């Protein structure tokens, strides 16, 4: 992975996932060190994403690296009509690695072919967000002690949610049992189910968000977004069905952890936050260590 861009979760093998997760554990023990001293990392956010940007920048800063970049393309020459290609070629001259977020799908792959330095994709439209997937996997491994033989429940928008798609692809390399809980309008697309069929992995689809979750090791919540519905009445009906409340966790497994890529709106009620099974804020902190592991691996510093 040294010198290679990370654009899609499929760019890494199972062994490479495990290597990143091991390294992330080492950075968690000692997140502040000078390993990136003398390095310049560019963070190019052509659309705003405050949490992701801060996580990357914190990761780099804690390791002693310097950041250049922008958090909104409105303040750059992209607004004067500069092509992505030119921006990437120029910033390649100024930095050792580029972290980019862009609303156009496939933009990160294209950039990786234009750039003379490695690209880390921090989200290209609805397509890929691989560092999110790796931090999800790190959170799963850390809380469950393993990635093998787990029962993962995904809840909410399974049709458009890129985080659940990427997590499914990555976790399908381990012997995972999947459960999909969603309204009919937002079901897991067939191509992902066919992928699981091909691998002989079990999955179950549910419409109702009930005590079925008592079997879960991981409960992965997502946001049901209003703009996904053509019928506003349907949205009003559905939006209150896929909400996790504290009492629903009563009979769940001891080792269960609730994950969410954040931001959350109302799909997890605040009373869950104090439950020991709520893990989403720690999950966000894990993102820093995972990104430290990714950036330093690509720069060949470990």
């Amino acid at each position, binding site marked *: 992975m040294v010198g290679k861009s990370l654009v*899609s979760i499929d760019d890494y093998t199972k062994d490479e996932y495990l290597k990143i997760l091991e390294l992330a554990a080492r950075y968690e023990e000692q997140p502040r060190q000078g390993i990136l001293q003398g390095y310049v990392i560019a963070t190019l956010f052509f659309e705003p994403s405050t949490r992701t940007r801060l996580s990357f920048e914190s990761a780099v800063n804690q390791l002693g690296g310097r950041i250049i970049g922008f958090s909104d393309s409105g303040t750059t020459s992209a607004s004067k009509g500069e*092509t*992505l*290609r030119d921006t990437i070629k120029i910033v390649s001259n100024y930095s050792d690695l580029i972290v980019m977020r862009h*609303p*156009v*799908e*496939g*933009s990160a*792959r*294209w950039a990786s072919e234009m750039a003379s330095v490695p690209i880390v994709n921090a989200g*290209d*439209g*609805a*397509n*890929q967000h691989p560092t999110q997937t790796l931090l999800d996997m790190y959170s799963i491994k850390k809380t469950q002690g393993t990635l093998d033989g787990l029962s993962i429940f995904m809840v909410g928008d399974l049709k458009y949610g890129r985080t659940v798609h990427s997590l499914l692809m990555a976790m399908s390399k381990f012997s995972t049992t999947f459960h999909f809980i969603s309204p009919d309008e937002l079901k897991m697309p067939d*191509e992902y189910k066919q992928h699981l069929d091909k691998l002989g992995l079990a999955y179950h689809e549910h419409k109702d968000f009930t005590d079925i979750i008592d079997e879960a090791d991981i409960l992965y919540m997502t946001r049901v977004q209003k703009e996904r519905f053509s019928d506003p009445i349907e949205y009003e009906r559905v939006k209150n069905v896929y909400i996790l409340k504290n009492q629903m966790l009563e009979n769940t497994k001891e080792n269960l952890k609730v994950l969410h890529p954040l931001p959350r709106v109302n799909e997890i009620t605040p009373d869950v936050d104090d439950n020991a099974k709520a893990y989403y804020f720690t999950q966000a902190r894990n993102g820093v260590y995972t990104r430290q592991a990714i950036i330093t691996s690509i720069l060949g510093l470990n």
Partner: protein
Amino acid sequence: MKDRKQLVVSAIKDGTVIDHIPAKALFKVIDILGLDHIENQITFGTNLDSKKLGKKGIIKLSGVFFRQEDLDRIALVAPDVKVNIIKDYEVVDKKVVEIPEKIQGLVKCVNPMCITNQEGVRTKFDLVSRHPVGLRCHYCEKITGANNMVIISSR
């Protein structure tokens, strides 16, 4: 007057005959092979009766021979064509076409939000399924299928 058919699409001495083109795909085949840039003699026929296809098209190219990889590009729109190589009025070789594993700059990506549609980047696909045809975009990773495939003109 023994054979009027020969007058419609006459025989060639040396060259290539592409037969069994679905009539509605004929002009796409012409486009994909870039035949409008060739100066050799070319004869086209279309809406000819065919037992297999109903209406078929045929192209006869005098003095033109294709590389297999160029011929394979037409498999996307005309998978069942028969290609005859003619030397001195005799068929010396018969070829079939197969969709290539990698396809560049020939098909439009179905995803309007894809970089290839947004910044005019040349398209690239990996063939993920032959029946039905499925092409996975190298950039946005979405699948373009036979039912929503648009061929990009060579011009």
